[in-house]
């Protein structure tokens, strides 16, 4: 039992102004700790207005030196806030930082309870627990690992491109991996960008070219990451480079193969199903790299065994039907995930008729429709390919802010809807209706754009559209799409007949986000977006050291924010690289070989493959480099042969007893 230990413990209770002292009797708590926990080794207990202040810290450092404290407990805020502060203080005074514990009596006591007496009693329990625990703490040394200066960026959208360029321009090497044949992402599909309406391609392509030609960037398009091993500083990543069936060293990107290819295919990706491409193709004119790819599923040669038109006409003989997928292995120190989003499938909202009513379009379809490089050269027409609409209805929040689909707001849809309204007005002069629940234009120069669209006589109806139907009730509705909605400001149901409906569909996590997250060892929110380390203060880092996120992979956002995050993530990576080595929390599991019975129960438990079984010695071994310190194996070992530093059985058992006042000195009656 803990009485045997002869540690010298100091307890420091923080008032945090009135944050703690307002609800907890701090002086009383301090006095109590000194008396009731004396037998545990508490030699001094002090309270102070702000422990985290330099004076407060000096107070502790002084005691450590003068009273020869061997353990320190600070009863203040959450360890997530100031653990580092006080452990550093301990370190400065020559005490191993891991011998200092924080007892959270603010977040867990004073802020959540009102009754002073009750709060004080709970605070006592928390302190008692911390004291018993700290006695069981053992000195630990941080683990230092070197940082490999190379970086992997996954996803070649605007966020990924930005991140890659920032790092490359700093003179460090970047691998930029993109699933599609070309980088550019969704932004390359857009026509204009809100609120300034500058042409998307015009501002994007220079960046694409720079990324494509940068000496510090290894561009791997038509490629996917298939495996990630290792940890911050030294990740080992396997990338599958899908066969292009085009020799990149010989191809000049002249496009003759595409021209001669007899097979026409609907382009579901870049043209959003609204246009065609060939079986061998570059998705768009400004594609980077310029090399085309061959789509095996649709290529006549791969299906029938004859054709080879592309091969015949290729002036440099770059076509190679025997090319195979290849696996590339790279070593990187940090990884940035900028894998972007999928568009919500509007067919799920069957009352809007997308997929059933020809003249209902999705936002991405409209982007292509209005794009000068798109299937209609920018003519905004109905599905028949010729008729210009006289009236257009734009529906916001499609699949967003709806418990039947996605709960969250997709952020960009309002501005996108306004942009569409402007383009339709400008190009066709049609009457435009915007149907919205709440108009969200909160960003620099966004609301001004809203004003501008208002001036263009766009008709705004506040109400979530109930249905889009082709069932006419009156002559005037025949042959049109009828949008039925409650005009919530007029308090009346309205039926508005239009020629074209555009659904401002929301954004969704990539269909494979969960698997990708698993592969890189990061978690997803309930909605499926990658989870950031801190929603406000650490938006581009993740809970896993060395893995960063940027752009829509982290949550719906517009182009400016995606670019900002790309840059932010790269800054975080650069700062890691410049530190040359990184210190890891020494919270690890280790096996005591004498006690290990070789039962192998723990072997299957580790998701990081840190546990291996030594056949020769018939014992289990844990690789500290791979161990993340979750402690699952520690809890599982029937022989108690595995111990976890920082959270050992002794520490937790002692804390339990403390919290239950089982360590109080019995007072003789």
């Amino acid at each position, binding site marked *: 039992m803990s009485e045997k230990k002869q540690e010298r413990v100091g307890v420091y209770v923080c008032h945090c102004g009135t944050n703690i002292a307002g609800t907890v009797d701090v002086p009383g708590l301090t006095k109590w700790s000194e008396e009731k926990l004396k037998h545990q080794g508490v030699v001094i207990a002090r309270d102070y207005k702000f422990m985290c202040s330099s004076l407060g810290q000096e107070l502790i450092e002084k005691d450590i030196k003068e009273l020869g404290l061997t353990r320190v407990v600070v009863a203040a805020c959450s360890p997530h806030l100031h653990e580092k502060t006080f452990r550093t203080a301990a370190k400065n005074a020559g005490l191993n930082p891991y011998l200092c514990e924080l007892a959270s009596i603010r977040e867990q006591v004073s802020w959540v309870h009102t009754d002073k007496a009750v709060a004080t009693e709970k605070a006592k329990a928390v302190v008692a627990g911390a004291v018993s625990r700290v006695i069981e703490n053992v000195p630990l040394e941080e683990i230092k690992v070197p940082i490999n200066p190379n970086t992997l960026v996954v996803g070649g959208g605007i966020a990924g491109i930005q991140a890659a360029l920032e790092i490359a321009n700093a003179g460090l090497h970047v691998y930029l991996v993109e699933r599609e044949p070309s980088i550019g992402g969704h932004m390359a599909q857009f026509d204009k960008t809100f609120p300034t309406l500058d042409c998307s391609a015009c501002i994007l392509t220079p960046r694409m070219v720079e990324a494509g030609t940068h000496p510090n960037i290894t561009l791997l398009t038509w490629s996917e990451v298939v495996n990630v091993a290792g940890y911050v500083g030294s990740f080992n990543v396997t990338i599958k480079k899908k066969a292009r069936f085009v020799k990149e060293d010989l191809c000049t990107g002249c496009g003759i193969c595409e021209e001669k290819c007899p097979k026409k295919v609907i382009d579901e990706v870049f043209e959003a199903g609204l246009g065609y491409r060939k079986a061998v193709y570059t998705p768009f004119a400004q594609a980077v790299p310029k090399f085309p790819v061959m789509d095996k599923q649709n290529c006549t040669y791969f299906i029938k065994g004859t054709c080879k038109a592309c091969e015949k006409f290729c002036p440099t003989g770059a076509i190679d039907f025997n090319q195979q997928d290849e696996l590339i292995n790279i070593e990187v120190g940090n990884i940035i995930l900028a894998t972007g989003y999928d568009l919500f499938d509007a067919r799920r909202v069957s*009352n809007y008729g997308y997929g059933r009513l020809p003249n209902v379009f999705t936002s991405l379809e409209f982007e292509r429709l209005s794009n000068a490089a798109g299937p209609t050269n920018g003519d905004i027409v109905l599905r028949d390919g010729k008729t210009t609409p006289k009236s257009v209805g734009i529906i916001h929040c499609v699949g967003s*802010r*709806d*418990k*039947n689909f996605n709960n969250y707001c997709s952020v960009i849809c309002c501005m996108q809807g306004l942009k569409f309204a402007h383009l339709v007005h400008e190009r066709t002069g049609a009457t435009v209706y915007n149907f919205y*629940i709440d108009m969200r234009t909160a960003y620099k120069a966004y609301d001004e754009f809203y004003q501008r669209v208002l001036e263009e006589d766009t008709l705004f109806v*506040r*109400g*979530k*559209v*109930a*249905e889009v139907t082709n069932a006419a009730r009156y002559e005037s509705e025949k042959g049109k799409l009828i949008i*039925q*909605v*409650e*005009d*919530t400001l007029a*308090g*009346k*149901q309205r039926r508005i007949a239009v020629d074209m409906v555009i659904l401002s569909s929301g954004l969704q996590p990539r269909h494979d986000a969960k698997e990708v997250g698993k592969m890189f060892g990061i978690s997803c929110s309930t909605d499926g977006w990658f989870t950031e380390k801190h929603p406000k203060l650490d938006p581009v880092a993740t809970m896993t050291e060395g893995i960063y996120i940027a752009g829509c992979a982290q949550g719906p956002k517009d182009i400016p924010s995606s670019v900002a995050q790309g840059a932010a993530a790269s800054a975080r990576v650069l700062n890691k690289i410049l530190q040359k080595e990184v210190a890891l929390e020494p919270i690890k599991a280790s096996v005591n070989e004498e006690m290990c019975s070789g039962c192998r129960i723990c072997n299957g438990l580790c998701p990081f493959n840190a546990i291996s079984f030594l056949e020769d010695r018939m014992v289990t071994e844990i690789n500290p480099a791979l161990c993340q310190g979750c402690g699952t194996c520690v809890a599982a070992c029937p022989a108690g042969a595995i111990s976890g530093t920082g959270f050992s059985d002794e520490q937790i058992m002692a804390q339990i007893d403390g919290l239950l006042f089982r360590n109080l000195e019995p007072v003789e009656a």
Partner: protein
Amino acid sequence: MPQMTDERVRAGLAREEDLSLLHEVSMKTAGVSHLEMCIQCGTCGGSCPVAMDMDHTPRMLFAMLRAGMREEVLRSNTPWICVSCYHCVVRCPQEVHIADVMYTLKSMAIKAKLYSDSTAPHFSQTFVDMVESYGRSYEFGLATRHYLKHFPLRLPGMMPMGFGMITKGRMAITPKKIRHMDQLRAILKCAKQLELTS
């Protein structure tokens, strides 16, 4: 004071006085109404096939509930016009049990005697009377009793239809009765007691 089912309320995270009428309706509704979640988007009012004949759209009714406008709400003809087609229910982005809330408002209106037009409440009551005395609905009795009371003018126009229904054997002149009427009565008697206590 209406008792609170709402978890947040029990955890002291919401103030009940803001919610009293809303919660009264919530409590009297079958299932979990989610009434407090309404974001006033108008999906219900837009979906409603009979909104044109309602004096308030369902959405407005919910706003009025929040505002504690008890009498105005219970006087509204909206719940009585509702045809329970459930379009609003499946489309509501906040999963409000709209149709069931309408049933609740009807029964509250009846108890408070606040409905404006007696046709609907009487029809329901007549129907229920039939069921309570036979255990089955009795269309002929229902039709005659109801039409004589509320649509005497409509009867001549209805005659060919009623005649056709009878000649084609689609309307029985005499009611059908279930065997264990006593059992059903006992159940309903007890149920009504519980209704009062709840």
